[in-house]
């Protein structure tokens, strides 16, 4: 049989994987539930990071690596992050050559803006529709390969499962044609899953409605490890909405947007009439260096606290102001319009106000999953970059767990999608070329039969439960109990709730049994998988008794000493020992500064606790599927640390 690669998903990661694989001359079958050009990646607004250092700031890929690791609280495998950041400038060049209309400086060079979690202007952008522009450029390249006969698209086809042979080796996939509900087997030597994030598991989010996470869940239920599921990024600044939380990009703050609430709780004036003296710019007040551009998890918790704990949201409600009016951001209206027009359009259309005149109103919302399918991190032994624990199954993009650790920095995702996509395409081809074994033909038939039987089961659902209601409840519970602040007793209740929802699933009434473009059927099919995927997320959160990045658990954070008591970690002996152990384990060489000063007793105590917590928890969570309320089986793996030693994450 001639070699073939299957790519599932046509967002940025999937398109990048397809292009690289096709370029190497192996035919690719590309599957997507929507025409690839409509994938969720088009929603990305703000930009893509690369330390091109075109602003004379002395930026460097190694500083980018360091910012990414620090921002993710050292939970990412370091060699991979380093590889990505080092290749980032070349990726921007590639996109530039593809024709992406990046914003330019007067001289015609690429322009860069500042994003959260860094002090450098490192983000290339196309107005406020960067994702769309990158997608279209890649989409056109894929179309070029289509005309060359190297890519075949299966749009409106939904991935249902991997086909695995008796050695658990990947042999292809099964997929359902959404327009007529037929199920077929497709053979391949390697499969790359690029199916994006699981926003719908949380009901309302900033994600597109197609981001169910079902594909990831299906692979997980077949044995692919699900890693770091508990790390869910809640974006600080979406517009609350009944059907969707529409994102207001971090780039608004990158261009000078400022977050505030009135100092007076009972303020009655219109926001534009409130002078600065009566405004509390609380992020600037608490973080004088990073200001409004602290990392997302920090900004989100501050806004959440301001509203939910202190009750100081606007008019007592869960919203705060984001002010990017020319007076407050210090930028000319026409410049703001040129750089942020895409975001303003969304606000004007859906809220009816003009952000150039009136401060926007925003509140945090579920945005991104750092967790995802486990993929390997080095070419040693059985581990291959971007390959999951199932031989021949790869993953890339938001669906993989790599690159962002416990918290993703803004504009790093588009980068990781393209880098991971290209890498996975490359590795999958190499894998396919060396794959000689032929699977027994019964392997395909058996998997097809399993999927047809599952479809039949769903078709026969004629109970009294409403699938959409079950989904609403799942979303509400996940959002309330498993996002910004987590508590163990609430997580236990949530776990019980998931059991209940799973039980009720079997009593759903499928309101449509037709074959033609039956979206209800597809939704119910995916709902099962959403419920299954909720478990590793919740159990991961329940077991992780610490706070790290986006995962914040009440009672399990170490109180930081007052700013003037904070010293250098390298002056703490326990810290030095911890770093030495890591260096030895990974064969790394870390250059710690000489031990200089005595540290305050408060900092000593803080560091003692910090080192203890690191020893226990600086580990990747691995969930292995096991059906029912007891599942999944959880274990922890060491994080590869070869570049920099971890250090306490304190932003000033």
């Amino acid at each position, binding site marked *: 049989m001639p070699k073939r690669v299957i790519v599932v998903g046509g967002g940025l990661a999937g398109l990048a994987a397809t*292009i*690289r694989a096709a*370029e190497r001359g192996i035919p690719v079958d590309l599957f997507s539930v*929507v*025409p690839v*050009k*409509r*994938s*969720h990646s*088009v*929603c990305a607004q703000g930009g893509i990071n690369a330390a091109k250092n075109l602003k004379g700031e002395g930026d460097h890929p190694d500083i980018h690596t360091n910012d990414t690791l620090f921002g993710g609280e050292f939970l990412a495998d370091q060699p991979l992050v380093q590889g990505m950041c080092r290749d980032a400038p070349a990726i921007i*060049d*590639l996109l*530039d*050559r*593809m*024709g992406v*209309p*990046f*914003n*330019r*400086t007067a001289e*015609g*060079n690429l322009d860069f803006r500042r994003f959260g979690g860094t002090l450098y202007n490192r983000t290339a952008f*196309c*107005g406020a*529709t960067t994702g*769309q*522009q990158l997608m*279209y450029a890649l989409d*056109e*390249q894929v*179309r*070029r390969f289509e*005309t060359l006969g190297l890519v075949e698209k299966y*749009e409106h086809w939904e991935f249902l499962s991997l086909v695995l042979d008796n050695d658990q080796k990947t042999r292809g996939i099964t997929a359902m044609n959404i*327009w007529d509900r037929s199920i077929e087997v497709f053979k391949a030597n390697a499969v790359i899953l690029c199916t994006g994030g699981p926003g719908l598991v949380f009901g309302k989010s900033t994600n*597109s*409605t197609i981001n169910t996470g079902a594909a990831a869940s299906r692979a997980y239920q077949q044995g692919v490890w699900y890693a770091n599921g508990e790390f869910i990024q809640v974006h600080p600044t979406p517009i609350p*909405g*009944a*059907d*969707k939380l*529409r994102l207001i990009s971090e780039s608004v703050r990158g261009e000078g947007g400022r977050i505030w609430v009135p100092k007076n709780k009972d303020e009655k004036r219109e926001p534009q009439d409130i002078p600065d003296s009566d405004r509390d710019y609380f992020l600037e007040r608490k973080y004088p260096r990073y200001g409004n551009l602290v990392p997302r998890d920090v900004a989100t918790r501050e806004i959440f606290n301001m509203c939910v704990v202190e009750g100081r949201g606007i008019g007592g409600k869960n919203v705060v102001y984001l002010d990017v009016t020319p007076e407050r951001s210090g930028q000319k209206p026409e410049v703001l319009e040129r750089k942020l027009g895409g975001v303003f*359009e*969304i606000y004007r*259309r*859906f*809220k009816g106000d003009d952000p150039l005149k009136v401060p926007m109103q925003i509140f945090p919302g579920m945005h991104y999953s750092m967790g995802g399918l486990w993929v390997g991190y080095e070419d040693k032994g059985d581990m291959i970059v971007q390959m999951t624990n199932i031989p021949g199954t790869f993953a890339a993009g938001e669906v993989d767990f790599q690159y962002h650790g416990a918290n993703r920095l803004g504009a790093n995702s588009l980068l990781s999608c393209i880098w991971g996509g290209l890498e996975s395409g490359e590795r999958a081809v190499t894998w396919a070329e060396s794959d000689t074994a032929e699977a027994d033909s019964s392997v395909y038939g058996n998997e097809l039969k399993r999927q047809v039987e599952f479809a039949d089961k769903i078709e026969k659902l004629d109970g009294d439960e*409403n699938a*959409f*209601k079950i989904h609403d409840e799942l979303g509400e519970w996940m959002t309330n109990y498993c996002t910004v602040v987590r508590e163990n007793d609430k997580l236990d209740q949530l776990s019980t709730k998931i059991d209940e929802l799973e039980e009720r699933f079997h009593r759903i009434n499928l*309101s*449509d049994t*037709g*074959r*033609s*473009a039956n*979206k*209800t059927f597809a939704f119910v099919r995916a709902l099962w998988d959403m419920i299954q995927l909720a478990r590793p997320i919740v159990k991961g959160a329940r077991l992780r008794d610490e706070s790290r990045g986006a995962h914040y658990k009440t009672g399990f954070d170490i109180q930081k000493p007052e700013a003037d008591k904070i010293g250098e970690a390298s002056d703490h002996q326990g810290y030095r020992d911890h770093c030495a152990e890591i260096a030895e384990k990974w064969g790394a060489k870390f250059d710690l500064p000489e031990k200089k000063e005595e540290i305050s007793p408060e900092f000593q105590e803080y560091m003692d606790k910090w080192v203890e917590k690191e020893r226990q928890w600086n580990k990747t969570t691995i969930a292995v599927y096991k059906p029912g309320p007891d599942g999944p089986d959880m274990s922890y793996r060491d994080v590869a640390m070869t570049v920099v030693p971890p250090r306490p994450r304190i932003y000033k």
Partner: protein
Amino acid sequence: MPEKITVKIKRQDGPGKEPYWQTFEVPYQPNMNVISALMEIRANPVTADGKKTTPPSWDDACLEEVCGSCSMRVNGVARQSCAALVDQLEQPIVLEPFTKFPVVRDLMVDRSSMFEALKRVKAWNPLDGTYDLGPGPKVDPDTQDDMYSYAKCMTCGCCLEVCPQVNENSPFIGAAAIGQTILYNTQPIGKALASERLEAHMGPGGVGDCGNAQNCVRVCPKDIPLTTAIAALGRQLTWHTIKNFFLR
């Protein structure tokens, strides 16, 4: 504030089936849009006269007017339904699928012909490869601005739906692909294929079939300067023809 809104939907159970109309009543919510109304109907598919029915099918994804999925006729106007706010619509809100594309079911249509058109005009840069080949050419901010205005086309199909020249008996390629032709003919690298793109527009179905009715530019949700593109492409074609004539 109304308590309920009325939505009338033109339905069709599958390709080639007879269309029929159904009316639904949906509880009103502030800031509602057409998709959120459809989601209510989907969760409780009962018609205004109390008959249980199947949930209507439609396409959506981004819900913020950037993916191009949710095109339909809303009160007779071709547009993105996710950005059609109920407060700004007359009732009953009448929803119909596009008429210039084959219906898949209910409000879903098959727009794959638009993607085929992009192949025909080779709307891409001819790259040597994805490896590190250095930066692209410098581009002045005005040219970048120009390209950006075309690059936002989301292949939603509104411009084709309203075009009198697009119909069952005509091979006309439509305004969207004309815009993309101009985009890639402006691209510093894309230019290399300019004459191939122009050739693709010679003969039946090309830009010459445009009757200049200008409906397209009026409905485009992304404000693509379509008539500018049509005029520019006309000029480029004229030059191309003259050049060909003298070279022959």
